[in-house]
């Protein structure tokens, strides 16, 4: 049975567990309580660095620390982490290929009431375009924990994103996380549902809805968006013949784009993208916004029906 757990809580727990590693340094830009880096601060204040409301400086400092052998975790909200600092990340982390983990919370439209300024819907796109950058979007709290441990081991720059609110679990505690590996959660024959982040759960629900109609949907958790697991994506689509992508992000530049690019080059098949359209979000409860912006499991199921119809 799935539980409702916040990914950021498990990010905090993972950092706490990583505190024993002397090379780990955590940077915060006045949001430690929200991003849960405060968990690290509690156990390891000497390697916790508060930079104040100065995200660009945080990335610059990260590069000096990483150049000296530190494994740096720098956290803030998705909009600031990727948008405000994009060029700093390009110069300070991606170009010199330094060991900087930019971990963003409060991504996606589920930030809700704060409105458009705080809803990162472009972050995957911004990070995916940078050479050397790995982009990860875990599906739930357990996967967030495992992914945090995995990126701490990985040598190089990483962007990892998560939302704010508790999300249903789709994986098991202690499950192994491999960077670059997508997971088939449900096997199916008629359509591939590629989800990332909390949309993986909606894909599972959509598959259930489709099953009642006699449609067999395959559900794949694509938690590493870059590098994309080409093998798993192509194997699934070669079996089903069509795909739906689902992400709490703009349909431009994120998972939908990544999967479409691959499929159009290697295995041309119908793809329907679920995500926010070319528009900003607005204030509202996360549930209301998911309905208004077309991100519910029913929207995914409907997209699956469209995709199947487009098959030759």
């Amino acid at each position, binding site marked *: 049975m799935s539980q409702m757990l916040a990914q950021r809580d498990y990010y905090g727990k993972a950092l706490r567990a990583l505190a024993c590693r002397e090379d780990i340094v955590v940077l915060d830009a006045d949001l430690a309580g929200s991003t849960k880096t405060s968990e690290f601060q509690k156990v390891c204040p*000497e390697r916790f660095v508060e930079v104040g409301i100065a995200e660009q400086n945080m990335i610059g400092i990260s590069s000096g620390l990483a150049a000296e052998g530190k494994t740096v975790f720098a956290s803030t909200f998705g909009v600031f982490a990727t948008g405000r600092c994009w060029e*700093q990340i390009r110069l300070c982390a991606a170009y010199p290929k330094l060991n900087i983990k930019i971990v963003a919370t409060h991504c996606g439209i589920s930030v809700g009431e704060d409105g458009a300024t705080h809803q990162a819907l472009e972050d995957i796109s911004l990070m995916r375009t940078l050479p050397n950058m790995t982009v990860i979007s875990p599906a739930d709290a357990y996967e967030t924990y495992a992914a945090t441990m995995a990126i701490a081991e990985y040598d190089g720059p990483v962007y990892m994103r998560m939302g704010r609110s508790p999300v249903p679990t789709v994986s098991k505690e202690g499950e192994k996380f491999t960077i670059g590996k997508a997971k088939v959660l449900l096997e199916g024959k008629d359509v591939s549902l590629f989800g990332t982040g909390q949309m993986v759960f909606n894909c599972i629900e959509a598959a259930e809805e489709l099953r009642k109609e006699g449609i067999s949907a395959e559900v794949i958790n694509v938690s590493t968006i870059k590098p994309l697991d080409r093998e798993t994506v192509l194997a699934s689509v070669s079996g089903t013949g069509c795909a739906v992508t689902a992400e709490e992000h703009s349909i431009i530049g994120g998972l939908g784009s990544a999967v479409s690019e691959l499929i159009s080059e290697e295995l041309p098949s119908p793809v329907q993208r679920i995500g926010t359209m070319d528009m900003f979000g607005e204030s509202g409860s996360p549930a209301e916004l998911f309905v208004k912006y077309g991100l519910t499991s029913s929207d995914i199921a409907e997209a699956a029906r469209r995709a199947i119809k487009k098959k030759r």
Partner: protein
Amino acid sequence: MIRLAKSEKELKEVANKLRLDVIEMTSEAGSGHPGGSLSSADLMAVLYFRVMNHRPSDPSWDGRDRFILSKGHVAPILYASLAESGYFPVDELMTLRKINSRLQGHPVRGKVPGVEMSTGSLGQGLSMACGFALAAKMDGKKHRVYCLIGDGELQSGMNWEAAMFASQYKLNNLVAFVDRNRLQISGCTDDVMSIEPLERKWESFGWRVVTVDGHNIGQIINACNWAKRARTRPTVVIMNTIKGKGVSFMENNVAFHGKSCNQEEAVCAENELEEAMRFCR
């Protein structure tokens, strides 16, 4: 290759040799930024041949002082300093900006021995330097971190974020140099976007401030020694300099910010610099 640790007179000669390299390499490349390279030459001679602890034969020696070139467009003067102190062959300077060369138009970490960090996008070097200095503090290491910033570059707000950070974290192992040549691409810094009063700005951010003649070797050395005595605060050395220093027609000539000499100008510049070197001896 020039041996390290020199007298003031010898350092003046080294600075002019570096200038000569800059003219030759940028002229050969047909592009580059000679103006700001020449204004920084005396500082670079002092740092690389006198002040900094470093081992050109062992670029990643742990005890080395770190140097971050925030104004990455003056890569030629950094490459000249590295080559002349023995990090790589001086001949290689002539590959500047050419295809497949390690000597990219702006410095790249990991490509060239002795280059600590990729720079070139202005306004970010001081933040990086703060990271280096903080890491040294965390690890109880004694080396120092030097960062060269352009004066026009100080118009970028990230410098001031870093300035706040450095004093908050008591980074007394950090020394920033401002190459105050008062010119940027579009003209005088005062006209483009004034950074004055510069000394008071740094002071108000909690830094120790000293202003020197950036072409006076003795004053630069004294400032570096004074920086070493910092107990709780970072130090900034504001160097009043002349853009294009050492070549009469390039001095205070904004045209040479990002343009190399043509063949005729290069000959003229080289003659002037060789003459100046003879004068040093």
